[in-house]
């Protein structure tokens, strides 16, 4: 493999919160075009890893580094990471009453364009793009005028996350438990949206508890995280094995 082509490189990452060490030394390399799945039992550090990648405060990196396209990601604010092309899909998307979904995503898209030196989209251009991208996740237009995630069902919130991703076209999407709380139909729609956004240039990290998401989103690599470190990395066949045997055989 070509080392020059690494999009994300996590080396020896140790992270603490309130003096408790959650990540105890994570190493991971992601290249463009790849889909990585990170699996593991509850409390193993999956969500901490995604939060640290997105720049959430209160997490203290005590050792190691994260390079994104060769740059120190940890030096960037959450919004700077977003502009650089990192996207975090939340496990529990936040409700923001009073901010309509359309205003929210329009503000976000235009902030991204500003950083790229592009002019703001006209109202017509924006609407066209929005309609097109909403169709990726079969969202109807009534969602645009509602408050961000307010009164959305679990499935609607996750579809909204993928809609945001579709609008922002990140290089690296980290999807934290995107499958949690989804029924089969919603899972199919959400996964369909994610697959549609896949290109040879971008990469995806799906964090999941269950194998079932991986029936829809086929990963190139699967990593099992336990007690804050990756204890096993393998190809997609590992998911089947975990489904059948659980995590115990890996842990012991």
């Amino acid at each position, binding site marked *: 493999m070509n080392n020059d082509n690494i999009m994300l490189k996590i080396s020896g990452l140790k992270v603490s919160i309130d003096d408790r060490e959650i990540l105890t030394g994570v190493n991971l390399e992601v290249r463009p075009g790849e889909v990585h799945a990170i699996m593991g039992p509850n409390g193993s550090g999956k969500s901490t890893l995604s939060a640290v990648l997105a720049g959430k405060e209160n997490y203290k990196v005590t050792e190691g580094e994260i390079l994104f396209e060769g740059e120190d990601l940890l030096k960037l*604010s*959450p919004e700077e990471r977003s*502009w650089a092309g990192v996207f975090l899909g939340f496990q529990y998307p*936040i409700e923001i009453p*009073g901010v309509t979904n359309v205003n*929210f995503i329009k503000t*976000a898209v235009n*902030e991204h364009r500003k950083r790229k030196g592009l002019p703001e989209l006209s109202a017509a251009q924006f609407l066209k793009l929005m309609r097109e991208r909403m169709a990726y996740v079969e969202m109807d237009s009534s969602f645009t005028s509602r408050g961000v995630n307010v009164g959305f069902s679990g499935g609607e919130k996750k579809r909204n996350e993928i809609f945001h991703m579709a609008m922002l076209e990140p290089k690296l999407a980290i999807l934290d438990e995107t499958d949690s709380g989804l029924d089969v139909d919603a899972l199919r729609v959400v996964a369909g949206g994610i697959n549609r956004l896949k290109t040879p240039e971008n990469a995806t990290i799906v964090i999941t508890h269950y194998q079932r998401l991986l029936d829809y989103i086929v990963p190139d690599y699967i990593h099992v995280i336990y007690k804050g470190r990756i204890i096993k990395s393998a190809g997609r066949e590992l998911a089947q094995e975990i489904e059948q045997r659980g995590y115990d055989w890996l842990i012991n």
Partner: protein
Amino acid sequence: MEQNYIYAPALTSEFRCKVPLKETRQLFIVNGKVQGGKSPFSLRLKEGEVMKEMLQIISVRHKSYKEHLATQQDFHFGKGSSGKIIQCSHTFSPDRFRTTEKVTISLERDAVAEFYIMQNEHNNAEHSTSYEVNLGAGAFLKMVFLSLHGGVIRNDIFLDFNEKHAECDLAGLYLTDSKQLMDNNIYVNHLVPECNSNQLFKGILDDEGVARFYGRINVAPDAQKTEAYQANHNLLISDKAKAYTSPQLEIYAGDVKCSHGATIGRLNEDELFYMRTRGIPAAEARILQQKAFAYEVLEKISNTELRERMLSLVERRLRGEFSHCSTCIRNCC
């Protein structure tokens, strides 16, 4: 309707209001003197009379009179009548104006009235208004206060339910910065059964701004089936801003639904982080949050054009564009 007011276009050259709104008449009161009409201002709607246009009453303090001003406005809505009033108060210069105002509002049986009160004065101004409200059977009154700017703004509301099945919806949004003081005192008096009252007051306090809220709901022994709700929420933007809130319920009847809630908080960090992960810069995200916080009050404004205008004023205020207000005489409204 008694026609004791006229449109006074001469003033608008000095007063750069983007008004009037569509289907709105304007009336100017300068230093307590009704322009082109009798002072003090009074409006009486006859039985069944429906105001076709909104009436915007713009009270300004002008430097030609710098003494303490005591003034009054009276509104009487006859049986089944209805109307919408916008009351604006401004100071034309940063002088030490003191204004004490009394406003009486009475609604007879089945009358419906909406009052939108916009307060935007300089930092040296001190404006205290006392509203005396009486509601007859089946009457409905909505009051929305938008206290945008002013050195000291005090609103006292004394509202009595005198007959059954009346309802009131009181809402307020107050924004303070520098050393401004906002003081809301609300007394809702359920004297008779089967009336509903609702209060929602929200404030965003920056710098060393201070807000006081005192809300008393009194439910008399006979006032069964009363529904009375009250909420006061304060958002502190700076470390030095202060909010004092005292919600009070005095209930002497058994079969009622009442609640009160008061909070003093900061911007939600989870919301902030969520917005930032989508590329919205922290400062912009905070403005969005504040607008969202304010929106719950502003959405009570039924007229779309007025609501949009108020929203944009609030946004400009939150972006700090009013910070020059202590010297400016543009009197945005």
